[in-house]
Structure formats: C-alpha cells, structure tokens
C-alpha cells in the first residue's frame, strides 16, 4: 500500500498531504522535511526511485509541482508512476489545464478527487471516466443543497 502522498512546489511549499497510516503531527513534519530535501536535491533526468528508511519513494515532477509518495516493499514502482500520471490527468480533466494555482486555491477539490481515486493507500477506481462522473454527481448534490439553503424562508 501507499503510505503517504505529498505534493510540494519547487520551493518546498506543501500543496497537498495525504497520510494513509496514523502518523503524529511531529512525525509528519519530519517526513515532509526529509522528502522535500531529498527530492529537490535530485538532478533532472534522474531515476524516479529512491530508498528511504524501509520505504521505496517514487516521485515525479509535473511543471512546478513534485508528486512524491512512499511505498511498501511489495508495491510496484513502475505502476506507481502510472498512478501519479493518472491523478494528474484527473486533475487536468476536472480543472481544465490544471496548474499549481488551481490546486492552491481549490485544495479541497483536489482532496475530493484524490478520495475518489485512492482509498486506504490502494487504487479505488481504474476507469478514467468514473472518477470524473462521481465528482460531477457529487457537485450537483452539493449545489442542490446550497440552492435549498439560499431559498427564502417564509
């Protein structure tokens, strides 16, 4: 299973963090710091795999964002690259030509999309279209309620 997924910018600012095991706040900060240092120090065109403690770290850079995740021993690193690619594609489909600012200003949407794709450190849905459909339907549900809220009461 995936232990964690982090998104951070080239300056080391965290944009998204998802932890799939219980971790204390202090430990989280430590891991984030170490990941940021390790990944940002890698020269371009390096191998995308690292070893850290007892985990395999897979990272990929998309424009100004680094996607970094920690895997257990049995997980397939090459497949994880595909997982990261799929997540970026989902974000792209939802936001329309996604960029870092989209993820900054709409971070909760990024989390919602992630939760339709990965759950408990494992892939939930392998179809490209199903995640997008679920997000749309959830949005309609949300709007309905907001409309309901904004209706005048008599």
């Amino acid at each position, binding site marked *: 299973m995936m232990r964690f997924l982090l998104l951070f910018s080239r300056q080391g600012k965290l944009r998204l963090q998802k932890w799939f095991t*219980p971790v204390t706040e202090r430990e989280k900060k430590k891991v984030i710091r170490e990941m940021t240092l390790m990944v940002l120090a890698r020269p371009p065109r390096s191998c995308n*795999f690292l070893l850290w403690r007892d985990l395999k770290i897979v990272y990929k850079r998309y424009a100004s964002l680094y996607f970094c995740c920690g895997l257990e021993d049995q997980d397939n690193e090459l497949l994880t690259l595909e997982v990261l690619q799929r997540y970026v594609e989902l974000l792209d489909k939802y936001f329309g030509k996604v960029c870092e600012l989209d993820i900054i200003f709409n971070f909760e949407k990024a989390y919602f999309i992630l939760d339709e794709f990965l759950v408990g450190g494992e*892939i*939930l*849905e392998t179809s490209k279209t199903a995640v997008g459909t679920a997000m749309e339907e959830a949005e309609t549900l*949300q709007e309905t309620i907001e409309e309901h809220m904004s209706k005048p009461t008599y």
Partner: protein
Amino acid sequence: MSPSVRLQEMIRVIRGARTQGEERGVIQRECAAIRAQFRQADNGTRSHNLAKLLYVHMLGYPAHFGQMECVRLIASPRYNEKRVGYLGAMMLLDEKQDASLLITNSIKNDLSHSSQYVQSLALCTLACMGSAEMCRDLAPEIDRLLRASNSYIKKKAALCAVHIVRKVPELGELFTPAARSLLSEKNHGVLHGAVVLITELCERNPDTLEQFRKAVPELVQMMKGLVMSGYSPEHNVAGISDPFLQVRILRLLRILGRNNDTASDAMNDLLAQVATNTDSSKTAGSAVLYETVLTVMDIKSESGLRVLAVNILGRFLLNNDRNIRYISMTSLQKIVQTDHNAVQRHRGTIVDCLKDQDASVKRRALELSLALVSAVNIRSLMKELLLFLSSCPPELRAHTTSGIFNAAERYAPSQRWHIDTILHVLTTAGGDVRDETVPNLIQLITTATELHCYTVHKLYRALITDISVQSLVQVACWCIGEYGDLLLRGECEETEPVQVTEDDVLDALETVLQSHMSSPATRGFALTATMKLSTRITHNVDRIRSIVSIYGSCIDVELQQRAVEYNALFKKYDHMRAAVLERMPVIDKSSPGHTNGESTTIKELEPTKLTQEIVLSQEPSNQVCDLLDLLGGSGEPLQPSPSLSSTAPGPASSTAGGDLLDLLGGLDVTPAPPSVTVYEKNGVTLKLQTDRQTDTGMTVTLTATNSTDGDITGLTLQAAVPKSVQLQMKAPSGDVIPAHGLGQVTQTVLLNNPNKVSLKIRVRVCYTSQGSVCQDMVQIDSFPSPAW
C-alpha cells in the same frame, strides 16, 4: 459575498504576505475569527470556516481547535458540510486523538444513508483513519455493504474491508465469503478492490490462502480476458487494458502459487502469454512485465519460463529509461543467489551501469556487481570495481571498499594480486576503509613470505609519496620496521628496487612521526618501526637512540610510554634487544569470522537482508596489539602496558628467547570450554558451548544429538537475543541427525554484545521425529563460562 470567495480571498491575502512574520500575523487574525465563528450558532458558513482552517493547517500552523468542529459538521444533515467535515476528520483526527471516537456514531448512521455519496464519505473516512475499535464496531456494516449495494459502494466497501483487516486481522474471517463472491463482478473498480482484499486475507491467514487457491483458474481467466481484450477507452493506458488490475492479479497469483505445484502449473501458460504479448515500450507495459517477472521467479515455474523472465530483465537492462534499468537491477539482485549463471550472462551491462550518472542506478549496479564476483571473473571485475572506486560518490565509498575487500578475500587468484588490490584501495580511498583493514593487511603480508621484499618496496614508495592516508601509513610503517633490512639490501625480484640509505628510511619514518597529519596511532606505529630498525640497520643506531630518547618526553602519553620502554631496552636490556625485536612469525588467521558465511542459509528471528559482509572478529587486532606490546608483558620490571587485551599472555619464563615463544604460546591457549545441555526431549539433546571470547564478541556452538531409533529430519534452530546484542547464525552442518547417536548437527552462532548487557538467548528448535513435527522453545539465561 459568497462564502467560498472568502476562503479564496484569505488564501490570496496569505500568499501576498511578504515576510514570514506578516504571514503569521494574518494567520493569527484569521484563526481568531474562525474560532469566534465556531463558537457561534449555525450560520451557513461553518464549512467554509473549516476549509480555511484546513488550509492554514497545511501551511504548518496548529489547528487542533478545529477537531470538535469536524465532529459537529459530520453530524450535519447538509451534504457540503458533511463533506468538509469528513475531509477535516481525515486531516486533523487520527486514531490517537480522543475526538475520533465521537465520529463513530455518525459514520455508522451515514453508512446506511439513502444517498450513496454520503455513504461513500463515511466509507472513505473509515478506510483512512478508522481505529481498531471503530473497525470492530462497524465491520458487520461493511460486510453488509460488500454484499448488497451498487458497484460504486461495493468498491469502496472492499477497500474499507482491507483497512479493517489490516487493523484487526481476526476480522478477516468475516469478509472471506463476501470477497470470494466479488470475484464474479464485472466492474473493474470492484474487481480491483476484491483482488486487493483477497491478497490481504491470504497474506495474513494460511487457511484462507488454501481456500483461495481454488480461485486460481478464475483469476487466470480474468487476466487472459484483460490481455486479449480489444481496445477499451475507459481502461486503456498506452495500449494496455487496465494495467492496475493486471498488476494486482499477478501479485495475487504470486502469493497463491508460492510453494504450491498445482497452482503454479495452472498459471504457467498465462504467465508465458503475458510475458510475450505485453508491449513494453511505455511504462504501463513495463510495469505489467515487471510484476510478471517477479511472479515467475517466486512461484514454482518451469525452467523455460524462468529463462524467459531473466531475458526480460536483461532486455530491461539495455533500456534507455533509467527507471527501467533500476528496476531490472533490483529484480536481478533478488534472484542472483538462485539463478546465478543466468544473471552472470548480463554482467557486462551491469558493469557498464556502474558508469551511469544517476546515484540510484550506481548503487544498484554496485550491489549487483559485488554479488556477481566469482573465481572466474575476479580479475576483470576487480579492475572495473577499482575504476569505479576512483570516481564513486562519497556515500558509496565505504560500502565499495568493504565489498572489494570481501571479494578479494574470497577469490584472490594470488597473494601478490591480493596485496596489490588492497594497496590500490588504500591509496584511492584509504579514508573510507574499516578499522580491521590494517591488521588484516598486516596478517596477509606476513603470510606472503616470498613477497616481503616486493611488499616493503611498494609500501616504501607509497609512503614517500603521500602520508595523509592513515591506514596506508600504518601498514607501511609496520612493514618498514619489520622488513627494513630487505629494503636496504637494494635488490628485489618482483619490482624495481629502490636505492635507499638508512638515513632515507629513518627520514621517512621521522616525517611520519612529526607530521601533524598523523594520528596518535600512526605515530605509535612509526615509533615502534624506528625502534625495530635498530636491529636491522648497522650504521645509524645512534640516530634511533636519540629519536627514542626525544620522545621520552612527548606529550602524548602512549608515545611517551613506548619511548621510555624502548629507551630502557637500549640501556638496561641491550642484551635482549635483538631477540625482542626479531622478525615476527606468521600470524595465524584462526577466528571463525574468516570462514565464508554463505548467506543463503542464515536463519534468524530478526529479518536480515542478504549481505555479503564477513564478520571480521577482533582476534587479529588483539594479537597484533599484543605482539606490539611484547615489551610490556615480557619482563617484570617493565610496567604493563595499558593496552593489553583481555587474553593476557602467560607468565614469562627466565630466558630471553624463551620469553618470546612463551608469550606467543600463551596467546593461543584457551582452555576447552565446557558444554552445557540446554534441551533434552524426545531423545533429542541440544548442547551449548561458548568459546573464543573477546571484549564484546562470543561464539556459541549448538550441538544436537539424537538417541532415538529413527533419524531426526528437518532440524532448524532459530535464536533470539536482547535488542542491543548482535547475532549472526552460521550455516548448520546439516538438518538430519542420524539415529542412535551416530552423528550430530552443529551450528555456530556469533554474538556481539557492545553494550555488555546481561546475555540471554532464546532458541527455538523445530524438527520432525517419527513423522510428527515438534517445536520447542528454550531460554538460556546463564552461560558455561563467565561471559561479562
């Protein structure tokens, strides 16, 4: 102004802050406002306030006061509030917080909500941060959802079940029937979840594993369907149909086929098909092939299939993509022990990867190259390794040097080659070698008697070039002290001899003594070497006398002591000097750590990675130190040196020559240690014997005998020790104990107790006697000879 703009407005303001202090100020103001809002009654903006808080939390600021708000929002009937509430719960609450228990009831209610999106929120949150108690409470609900719901919920329930099984393994039995039936679903998301769940169940429970072996044909069919199916736009990734599902199925097949011939046979054809038909030009295909190779190597596959798998790895090695080369080497590392010859074929490419720019690839290539060293290829491979050493990144140097030494130790084609190799390493990377290198090299040099002349010439040349590498300088000093006469003779068969005078040699040693680069240990070596030369040179003995007397008032206590003792040797004991400073006899390499510890059969209760490191015991260094401190132990008037090791030399006899021999004899004697019976049952007796104690290391020998009428088979011994003690089990002499006490099985265990804790060892004995398997545990708290 709509609330969500307020959130984005806040983000903009925070980002606009120019300094850290300004940002902190903005955030403090916002947090105060949020706190105030939380205290107010419901005003329709709660979810947005929580969202703001979550943003602040992501920047690294404390947000614990939002925990109760999460609980409140989750209980709200409105979907958007629930959504943000659950998101907050996943970010702020974990099983360690007390507040997490409060949401159990809400989750329970939401699991039966009429809207599937609310159900899915609850499922997702439970799967992300559900504690063991929550899992126990809600497991029956999840089981219900696994059976009777739509596929959107089923797939989420499946992964929720996976989380529950991880947290509370006993609940696995609850989900087994549902998991089985999920395999007949059509929806890929549900199938994927089902395969993950079954994998988790099988990994934890061997009975479940047995049960699911019957599902192998079904899984094979499923996989075939994916591989042969036409283009499906929904699941297609670079020409592969649903690689995510394919990889998970392969992983499950691996677990089911392990150690089982029938299951492995059933999947042979499929694996061959996948291996040949999958297009590996893109990462997705390579990922599937990689998983296939791992599966083939792990199950009981036929040899043709194994060859196919290794060839795939070979192809990967030549791929332009660094990731694929890295993966290939990782896999080859796993199989290098079992399929050694197959991997040897790719040695050339692996060695080329040593020159790659990437640090990860270099590391993998190094590990693999070291694993591939054999008697046949040692010369060519060592050239490559030495070349690598000269340009390797600093974090790999220590590992490289120790790997080179191990390889040289095991496969050196000649002593001269061995000595040359070690000297080369010391000149290139002398700062990164282990401490035992110096005594080991000295021991090696003494054994190579024909090469003394050659060695001392080489070392002398190295010494006058550069005195910064401590290990090299120490060995050089020792050699010059020992074989200085050969150096001065000016003739050598193996190499161009140097023409030096006694003054030149003494100059070199004095340079080392006086240089600020030399460590105290090195200076000790140099001083002793100078002293030894007093019997090997003829003209400049006075110079040596003066050097020695100068150092009699050196600040360094060790040097001062040595100098004073050598002075005494000149003055009062001149008649003994020649005998004391005589040529050393060959040092015996007699400790168990020097025999090759083949790593294939090492079994320990603590898991270890396969490494090639030989445990070098402390014996040689103790012996060398003892011998160097001969002067300390020989006569009564001389003060005993503080660095005498625990194996004290025997009492000195009266004659000078006899002194030397007795001391050496005393060092080697250790009385035969007593053996203690620690286990006696069913006719099997296990005895324990300790010997060769050094400061922190001990060798324990376990001997098993059998007095029954039938042979004992399948004998395995496992040992566990307290945490700070290091344990290494050597390969047992066998696993069958012949009947009637006709034979025995021995196994050696090396212990290292650096913290000197009280030593206990627990041994688990497993064996098959007269058809039945027996397993026993024995704890040994006291040892035959005083340990520490």
